[in-house]
């Protein structure tokens, strides 16, 4: 019997017998090549969406919020639904970068760069909604605690909406710093490989004169750790605070202490689904299957089934609490949510978010690329409905029955939403063209221990007898 130096379970994180040189070449290839037609097509489509979104927003700002379908019973509709949805999506990146870094989950190296980029773009999209849902967006600066001549007049620090302003902006800032600091060594790599002057110049600027000295690396590591430590609470805080928008209100269906954990789980759920959607596309388009392996996809799917189940339990808990509380408004709010005119949105949410991820208990399905892709989209649809259910189908049947109404979106609302897709994909396509979509430096850290090459070396080791192995191990360093 041979000894097993390598885990039975863990598969390699980098497939294909890659050397450091291969890694650099593979990941830098999209940056150094002319983009494909598909990329141009994607960019044009994204820009069209962005343009339509900009027009929709212009239309809304010019004429007034009335061009949307919301009304005095349902004061938030697609706007805040989309806001929460995008913020939720923006969760995966930091979770992957920060929490998985602290937990030493090495598989994160293949996906963290793209996930962080996604986070930043998603938060950018999310931010549009609370800004442009204001009736007087030109006075938006009133929410900032700026010194002023109006008294001075400060914002209302009791308002959950104000907490949002701080939470989102902090999250965005830290995520951006984290993402950018990770990019510095890779920018230096591109700079060093650059064959044109302009590229050398620009990437040289972007890499802040990185030289790759030991001191550089030491500081880089320290900074990563500090930022990881800073972002870890943010992962939990952002969506907790977003949930406070609802939880601190008096409206039955919103006023619930379960909201913070439920929102955070939901956010991770949707974030991972979105990462999956994007990575499956990226690995296909840029031929990065060897770096973003089936193992990565499966790991993500496992998180999806876990968080999906948490969200499912949260839904059931809400129903249970409504019954158990014996509060008539709470009970009725949920009754109307489940069985009222908006029943379809509740059941769409239930099907997409609770039922569908359960398929990931099967390993075969977890490792099926097509199924994973479809399901990741299903989950995002479901999570959109969750926000819609929480917002619109709570407001449409609250305390006083005479106020009850109905809501359907109009084209400017739809346009605004599509516009944020345009913004998101425009940013993402530019990112995938000009930035290394996988962290070159970080993948090299793990290549030595978990790459195919290491695997082969290990196989050789495993052929050895125990004594020989001990001898090699003792004299290896």
């Amino acid at each position: 019997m041979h000894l097993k130096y390598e885990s039975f379970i863990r598969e390699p994180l980098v497939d294909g017998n890659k050397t450091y040189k291969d890694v650099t070449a593979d990941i830098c290839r999209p940056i150094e090549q002319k983009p494909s037609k598909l990329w141009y097509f994607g960019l044009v489509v994204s820009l069209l969406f962005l343009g339509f979104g900009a027009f929709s927003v212009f239309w809304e700002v010019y004429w007034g919020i009335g061009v949307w379908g919301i009304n005095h019973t349902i004061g938030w509709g697609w706007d805040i639904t989309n806001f929460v949805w995008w913020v939720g999506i923006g969760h995966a990146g930091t979770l992957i970068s920060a929490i998985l870094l602290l937990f030493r989950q090495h598989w994160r190296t293949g996906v963290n760069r793209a996930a962080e980029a996604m986070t930043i773009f998603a938060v950018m999209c999310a931010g549009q909604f609370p800004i442009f849902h204001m009736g007087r967006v030109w006075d938006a600066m009133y929410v900032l605690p700026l010194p002023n001549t109006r008294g001075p007049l400060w914002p209302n620090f009791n308002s959950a909406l104000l907490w949002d302003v701080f939470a989102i902006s902090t999250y965005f800032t830290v995520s951006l710093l984290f993402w950018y600091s990770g990019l510095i060594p890779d920018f230096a790599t591109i700079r060093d490989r650059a064959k044109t002057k302009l590229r050398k110049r620009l990437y040289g600027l972007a890499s802040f004169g990185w030289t790759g000295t030991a001191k550089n690396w030491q500081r880089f590591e320290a900074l990563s750790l500090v930022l990881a430590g800073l972002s870890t609470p943010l992962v939990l805080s952002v969506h907790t605070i977003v949930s406070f928008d609802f939880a601190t209100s008096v409206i039955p269906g919103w006023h619930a202490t379960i909201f913070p954990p439920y929102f955070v789980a939901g956010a991770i759920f949707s974030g991972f689904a979105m990462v999956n959607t994007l990575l499956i596309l990226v690995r296909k388009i840029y031929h990065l299957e060897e770096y973003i392996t089936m193992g990565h996809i499966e790991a993500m799917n496992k998180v999806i089934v876990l968080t999906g189940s948490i969200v499912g339990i949260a839904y059931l808990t809400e129903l249970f609490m409504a019954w158990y509380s014996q509060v008539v408004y709470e009970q009725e709010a949920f009754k109307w949510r489940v069985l009222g005119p908006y029943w379809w949105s509740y059941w769409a949410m239930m099907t997409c978010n609770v039922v569908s991820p359960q398929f990931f208990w099967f390993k075969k399905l977890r490792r099926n690329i097509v199924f994973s892709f479809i399901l990741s989209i299903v989950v995002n649809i479901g999570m959109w409905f969750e926000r819609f259910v929480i917002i619109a189908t709570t407001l449409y049947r609250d305390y006083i029955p005479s106020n009850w109404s109905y809501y359907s979106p109009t084209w400017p609302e739809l346009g605004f939403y599509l516009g944020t897709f345009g913004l998101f994909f425009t940013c993402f396509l530019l990112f995938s063209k000009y930035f290394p979509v996988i962290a070159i430096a970080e993948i090299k850290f793990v290549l030595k221990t978990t790459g195919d090459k290491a695997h082969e070396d290990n196989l050789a080791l495993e052929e050895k007898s125990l004594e020989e192995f001990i001898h090699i191990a003792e004299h290896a360093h």
Partner: protein
Amino acid sequence: MSQKKYWKGLEELANTPEYQQSVANEFNEELPLDLSDNLLNATTPRRDFLKFLGFSTLAATVAASCEMPVRKAIPYAIKPEDIIPGVPNYYASTFVDNGDIIPVVVKTREGRPIMIEGNTLSTITAGGSSARMVAATLSLYDKTRLRQPHVDGKPVDTFDAVDSGIMSGLAAGGAIYLLTGTISSPTTEQSIAQFLAKYPTAKHVTYDPVSYSGMLLANEASYGSRMIPNYLFEKAKTIFSLGADFLGTWLSPVEFSKGYTIGRKIEGKNAKTAEMAKHYQVEGMLSMTGANADERATCKPSEYGKVAAALYSAVTTGAAPNTGSKNLDKMLVKAAADLKKGNGLVVSGSNDVNVQIIINAINNAIGANGTTIDFANPLKYKKGIDADMVALVDAMNAGQVSSLLIHGVNPAYEYFDGVKFLAGLKKVKTTVSFSDRLDETAKECKYVVSDHHWLESWGDAEPKANYISFIQPTIAPLFKTRAFQDSLLKWAGATGTYHDLFNAYWNGKLGQATFDKALQDGIIEPATPAVSGASFSGNVADAIAKASAVKGGEYEIVVFQNVAMGHGGAWSNNPWLQEMPDPVTKVAWDNYVMMSPKTAKEKFEAELTSINQVDPKKRLLKLKVGNKEVTLPVIVTPGMHHNVVAVAVGYGRSEGVGRAAANLGKNTYPLVSFNGTFTYNAPVTIEKTAEFYPVAVTQTHNSAETRPIIYEYTLEKFKENPYELIDERREAIEHYLTAPNEEHHEGHDAYGKGDKFDAKKFEEDFRKNGTHYPVHESMGLHWAMSIDLNTCTGCAACVIACQAENNVSVVGKDRVIKVQEMSWLKIDRYFSGDPNDPDTIQTVFQPMLCQHCDNAPCENVCPVSATNHSSEGLNQMAYNRCIGTKYCANNCPFKVRRFNWFDWNGADCFDDNLYEDGRRDDINDDLTRMVLNPDVTVRSRGVMEKCSFCVQRLQDGKLTAKKEGTPLKDHHVKTACQSACANGCITFGNVNDKESAVFQDRYVNNKERLFYMLESIHVLPNVSYLSKIRNTDVVMNGSEHDEVYNKHI
């Protein structure tokens, strides 16, 4: 003494030529300004440069500022003596509209009337108002009003141009007819008399589009005099109404409403001995009055004769009624017994002479004449006899009329056979209209000499014999119009004006001093009103035989006036009234077919429930009466008789009436028929169509869902245990009455039992202990409102008063459909009972406005503190600070906050983005904007607004009290809704003042009926409600009979 000479220096003393020169030249140093080309080479280029820079910057600024909008604010060159800018003047006047008469006080600011309130000196209406009365200011500033006389549809510049033509037409001889609505003005009658005297062939025909001929003729037959007696609802203990909407539209609803609610006021402290008038209603449709009834049963309108006969027999012989409806029979037995107890009053809305004769006989039998019906001061609201009008139209068609002068009515639209009228009109040589607009009739008339609006006129009105109310102009005529009376006098060749006649008449009658005082007060009334009866001498048997023989159909239609629009007229073009939701159906901006849920579901594929409640698209139904046909959307309404449908008049107007009215809904007057008198009901055939039409319904859910937002008790139960509501409140919030670390009080002893209950302490403990946070001390003023659900009839006068007072925007039909309306005050209407059994339906009206919570959920969620709390308990809005996140509206449990979705009124900083829908837009015309209250900000797009408790009135009241040097008392402040309410259902004041009505109401007189909406969520509203007491056997709301709730409709 020689003059001394002083010198200032040696130079002056020497007085050299150099010195003289320097004195002559004041600026002897050269200005350091180099205007030559070599500026930069000058000795001081830097300074000059700075000067030029300064000048040019300033010049550029001034030049750029030329784009400042020009505001048309013109100061008084010579200030009128009685106008102080910013200080309103009040004038007593009288609202007169087609027989409807309400004494009013008009508030004017800088010479323009902006608000109309009831005249509290009048004993008839006692300061009450109706929606239309308040909305009259908007009609004054109606852009569609004609600005000069018209001939052949074309404007002419002088009155002479029309007068000569008309006078030669009149002088040409032939039959001259003066067609008017009911004239109740003594001096107008005088001027008509002068006109008739000048032209011997002239006749005066009175025509009321909504006719009371049936009553007039029945009274002639019964009492020998063609009049309508005075109904004293306040004296009635039992009221039986057979299809009379006396709270909404019948005769004088404001007066009746005031009287009616006197009999329905309940004080909790006297609960054990409480008495309450009992109101029975039998009708085909669900009217607003029916919605207020204690007991209600339905029948087809063709059966009114039968029902009246059955009641007559039950009252006189005690015979068991047999009308074919068990509910109705049971109710008639009960009603007969109650009516016989004395102080009964029976009224009917039927225009059938025979039905009215039977009603008279019943009133005679129960001894109502002389107690609840007064013959000493008969009503003068309606005098038209339908047959006269029909005869006139026949004469016109026969070519027997040479001149027709039409005032106050619009037969082309309102006459049941408008086509025939128009055909006849073509055969009349000289046609004159006094209409204020080119309406359906006026546009077919040769001459249009518009009358003044009543707010621009002198005049008088006599609502009842011996009761006079004066009309004073509150503004100079806006346009080249002439008083109707002046036109008549002119054509009669009189030398004086109507004003002379008016002065002479009243001076002669009253003497100058009394007349002046009367003008100031607005009214003259008899000191001690005499009440007298009359003896009945009608032929009941004949009437019963004839009335019972009326044939019905499978389905019958009722053509009615709705509360907002009335008979139509100029009101159709009043956007406030168009947007006022109907009290019963809650529909704005349209007329429609009201139909029972059962019939709608089984026969016409229209439902009350499920998605239909929120879907604005309603199925179109084709109604056929004889050869007349209209297609209207169906609104499913519980409480309708299964075989009765109802349609309102006042819609389907022509372009000339105005933008708001044109082609909206359908004209339903053609469905009226003439049968001796106009008949407003008829057999109808109904066809389902496959088409749908969007209707703006402001309340889509009909059940209060047994939620503790409304409390209702039967009178009997309330008398048995008046403290039930107190116990319910205690149970709901018991655990929050003591601080968390204290022990809970056991039982109810802490606050006293029964009438010893300390409502104030109870509230204060809850206020303090129901929260973790410190409680703000409330010192000085603390504004509070109490609303009595028992006396709210749903008439919506308060809604329009609020709109007029607070510049509340009109949004138009499309935006009402989108639930984006702006009304600060709305009246919620809930049904309970079994929708399949119209006789079980009970209705409750609940005025809903900002509750001014002391622990307001809207306040803490606003990110910028735009909504905050005043030290006087107001939840106030700082519009300038609001950025429009709508979070406050979402977090408002009452959903009473209103967001400015668009630029409704041009207050926005963007150009050219005013919201327009083609219908409501005249409201932003410069003329129409004169109606705006200058004390209230016009809100811009993107900000939230809501009820402010009329903060401008509070401020004014505080100043008045301060000037008087007295503490503020109730009489210093009245909110707009409060003063509009004829029923006194709204009480407002400083709740920290133990003498205030609101304090007394809450903690002394009516603590048994007091409740707060959603009390248990501890938002601490400053608006409280008093429970509804029904004088009936069972309250449906929440009971097992309440299918509206049980089936979740």
